[in-house]
């Protein structure tokens, strides 16, 4: 393996990891705060992508410049969060916080099934492609290899901004601290007057926005088609569990591990490339049951 190939694998891994991280971030945030593993996260990701493609197509047809695709990604993500995430929490999840984990998981699974069909009803079955955002940024050549600026620079940049932004938000803003307090001890938080319901609603909407943003950012590089959410949800599950549920920085490191592991596998042993995320997950969890960055919970007697 020479330097060029090493760099290539590195680039591939980083751009892939950035995207996976953004999606996993929302999942781990929701789990960290609400202890709910949201299977419908994958659908929100897909719908974010569909919405971006439709909006971009619409505005480009009106004669807007391709750069306009970027703000539209944000708009789509927020739409997904508010129009889907909000009602899901408000109408469904709120009713089941006191139910067993299994039922909570199944409720999100049911939402996943419903949203899969909603996508098909709204957008049909033909794949969509909308690469104007990607084309607007052009290419960059590094060591004789052409890579898109979008994948090599923009995606990692967004991922890093989100990572540090969310860290800052949780630790240094009032709402962030309220969220952390609720995460630590819900009852204690309620006893000092924190409205846990609103914290949960807010968290879920933010998580859904992140899912939508993941889809929006993925849309210029991939075909948008039915079933794209199911794959993504399993992958981001693997990232989140490997990192330790609720671990934001951990999710970043794990996404990078999985991204790099996958891209190097393509060069070294292509047959196992698909296996990499799960192998990493199993190996990590065998050694550290609580995930790479999770901390064990002591049982009190």
């Amino acid at each position, binding site marked *: 393996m020479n330097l060029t190939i090493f760099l290539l694998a590195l680039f591939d891994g980083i751009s*892939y990891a950035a995207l996976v991280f953004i999606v996993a971030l929302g999942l781990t945030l929701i789990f960290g705060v609400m202890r709910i593993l949201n299977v419908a996260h994958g659908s929100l990701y897909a719908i974010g992508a569909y919405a971006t493609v439709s909006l971009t197509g619409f505005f480009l047809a009106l004669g807007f410049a391709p750069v306009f695709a970027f703000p539209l990604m944000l708009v789509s993500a927020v739409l997904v969060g508010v129009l889907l995430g909000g009602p899901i929490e408000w109408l469904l999840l709120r009713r089941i916080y006191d139910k067993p984990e299994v039922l909570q998981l199944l409720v999100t699974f049911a939402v996943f099934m419903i949203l899969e069909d909603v996508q098909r009803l709204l957008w049909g079955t033909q*794949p969509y*492609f909308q690469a104007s955002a990607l084309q607007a940024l052009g290419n960059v050549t590094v060591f004789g290899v052409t890579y*898109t600026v979008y994948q090599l620079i923009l995606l990692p940049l967004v991922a890093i901004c989100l990572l540090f932004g969310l860290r800052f938000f949780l630790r240094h803003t009032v709402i962030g601290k309220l969220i952390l307090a609720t995460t630590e001890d819900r009852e204690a938080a309620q006893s000092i007057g924190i409205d846990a319901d609103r914290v949960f609603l807010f968290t879920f909407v933010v998580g859904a926005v992140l899912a939508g943003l993941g889809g929006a950012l993925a849309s210029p590089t991939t075909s948008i088609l*039915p079933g794209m959410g199911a794959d993504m949800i399993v992958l981001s599950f693997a990232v989140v569990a490997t990192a330790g549920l609720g671990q934001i920085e951990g999710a970043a490191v794990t996404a990078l591990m999985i991204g790099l592991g996958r891209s190097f596998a393509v060069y070294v042993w*292509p047959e196992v490339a698909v296996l990499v995320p799960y192998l990493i997950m199993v190996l990590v969890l065998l050694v550290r049951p609580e995930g790479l960055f999770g901390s064990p919970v002591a049982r009190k007697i």
Partner: protein
Amino acid sequence: MKTLLTTSALCVAMPLAAMAADKPETLKIGMTTFLTGPASVFGVPARDAMDIFVENLNAEGGINGVPIEVTYIDEGAGAEALTSEYRRVAQTEGAEVMLASISSGNCQTLAPLAEDLKVPNLMWDCGTQRIFEEQSYDYVFRPQGNATSEMLAAVAYLLKTHPDFETIAVVNQDYAWGRDSWDIFHTALEAMKPGVKVVGEFFPKFGAPDFSTEISRLQALRPDVVLSTSWGGDLDTFVQQAFQRGLMNTSTFVLPLAESSLERLGSSLPAGHIVGARGDHYFLHPERRDDADFKGFMEQYKDATGDIPVYSVFHASQAFAALKTAYEKAIADNGVDWPDEDQLLAALDGLEFQGLGRALHLREDHQGVESQLMGTSAQTGEYPFATLENIMIFDGEGLLPPVGEASIDWIKGLDASFADGLSVKTYEN
């Protein structure tokens, strides 16, 4: 004594009874197609087309006065739902003919089932060449070509248009079609142009959202030719990303199924790459585009769906044509009002029929002989997407192994003269 009489009376009556079936109120047929899942890119257009064919025929009074009614079965609902629905439609709903299926895996499951249920089955879209090579069927027919004829046409076109290429890499979907089609293509290349070097073989998982890694490697490998038999979203993503990264400027792509992605790819498929269509399926078919029925259907389809038809629509048209022709032939041959099953099967043997493309016929092993259309992409500006130029239509006969021979063994025995020996017609566009 009485019994004996009855028996002999029955014996006399039997052949007569076999001569004519009661004319049903409607001809029920079942059709499996992908309504959900990634392959619905083929399944839904085929269903929409089938609705048009049926509507048109019923408007003319159906087959010998019998209107057709189609029940669709979703292949995307999973194997259990598919097999139980298939049985229900064939047995309880009394479908006389089944059209199944798109997925090769489903064909392999349903072909023996059809045989056991004794229901005539037209394999309308699946590509696997194995079905009739590994087993012979009485009830199963394929009114279309198969992977062998499709891949050989692609190889032949490549050799005719790019005789000097030296290296090739493949990026196929990781499932039976992707693997099988590469086996055939590769074997054919080795036989016909032994010097070609395979520099990379990639089988990213079916439905992969990202091909950046594969494209990075291809950029480093710089093969003369990149083959991909992918389809649907996978092909779109791969071509888009390859185009974006400039890979399409340095390598010639051979995309035997890209006809079905032309419209979606728009300007992302630049000029000079090889496009195929699993048969002679192209909305600007050079021999057919001026025909009234062809044009009429294109307009009807465009009105109904807003799209141009892709190859699965052509395959549906062929299956429908085979069905209609077989019934008409059986009725005419036997001089009956409505054929029974045996008469229908007899009519299907060696049947000649024509769908939207060139005429086809069924061989004695029930394999259809279908012409293959290949072309090179061109961005003419006439449409907002690539169209084809330098089109060649290969006669199907030469692209299939003789009856009873397995494709791979037959291909191994071919040589460089194969492409020259094919019967082919060339068109500018």
